[in-house]
C-alpha cells in the first residue's frame, strides 16, 4: 500500500529491543545506583562538617518525675522529647519514629515510647526498639547538666555521637 511506503514506521521493529539496548538500560540503572551511593557519601561528609550546637532545653526541677517536655533540636523542624525518668535522671529522644517518621509519645505505662501508627514501642531508658516494625533505635539527644539547666549537646543516632 502507498501509505505504508510513505509512512515507513514499522511498529514491530520500533518495539523490538535489541540486546545492546537492554544492556544499555541495565548499565544506566547501575549508574543510578552508583549516584545513590555517592549521594550518601556526600551527605555523610556534609554532616560530619556540620557541627551540632548546644541548646538549653529545661531548668532542673522544672518538670515533675515522669514528666515530658517537647523541644526542638538541633533544627527548628526536629521535634524531640525530654523525659524526666528519676529524681535526677533525664533522657531525651527524637520524636520521629525510625519506621515511617510518625511522632512518638510516652505510653500509658510510662516505661515506653509508643508510635501510634504501627504500634512500635521504644525503651524509655535507651531508645531501643522493644516491639513493632521500627528498624532502628530512636536517635538519642545527648544531655548535659550545666548549673541548674539541662542542655542538649548532640545527637546519638544509634550509638554514634555527632
Amino acid at each position, binding site marked *: 500500500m502507498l501509505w505504508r511506503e510513505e509512512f515507513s514506521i514499522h511498529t514491530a521493529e520500533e518495539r523490538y529491543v*535489541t*540486546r*545492546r539496548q*537492554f*544492556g*544499555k538500560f*541495565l*548499565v544506566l*540503572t*547501575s*549508574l543510578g*545506583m*552508583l549516584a*545513590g*551511593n*555517592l549521594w*550518601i*557519601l556526600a*551527605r*555523610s*561528609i556534609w*554532616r*560530619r562538617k556540620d557541627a551540632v550546637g548546644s541548646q538549653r532545653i529545661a531548668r532542673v526541677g522544672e518538670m515533675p518525675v515522669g514528666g515530658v517536655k517537647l523541644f526542638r533540636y538541633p533544627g527548628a523542624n526536629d521535634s524531640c522529647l525530654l523525659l524526666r525518668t528519676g529524681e535526677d535522671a533525664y533522657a531525651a529522644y527524637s520524636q520521629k519514629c*525510625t519506621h515511617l517518621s510518625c511522632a512518638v509519645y510516652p505510653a500509658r505505662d510510662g516505661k515506653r515510647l509508643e508510635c501510634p501508627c504501627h504500634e512500635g514501642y521504644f525503651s524509655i531508658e535507651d531508645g531501643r526498639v522493644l516491639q513493632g516494625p521500627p*528498624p*532502628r533505635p530512636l*536517635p538519642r539527644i545527648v544531655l548535659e547538666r550545666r548549673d541548674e539547666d539541662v542542655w542538649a549537646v548532640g545527637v*546519638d*543516632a*544509634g*550509638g*554514634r555521637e*555527632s
Partner: protein
Amino acid sequence: MTPGDRPPNRGLTAIDAAIALIAVLLIVQMWLLTATLEAFLAGHREAALPGAILSLLLFGVCFGLYLFIERLDRSLWHLPR
C-alpha cells in the same frame, strides 16, 4: 579460527551471558545501596565510603561488560549472511 569465522550462535550466547552477569551485579548493587542507606540512617557514617567504592567497582564491571556486548554485537552484525 578468525573472528569472522565464529558462528553467530556462540556470539549471541556470550552476549546473553554478559547480560545475565550485568543483571546479577545490578542486584548486588541494589542490595549494597539499601544496606549503605540503612547504615547511614542508623548513624554509621563510616559505611558510606566503602559502599561508594564498591558501587563504583560494580558499575565499572557492568560498563566493561556493556562495552564487550557492544563490540561483540557489532562484529556479529557484520558477519556475512
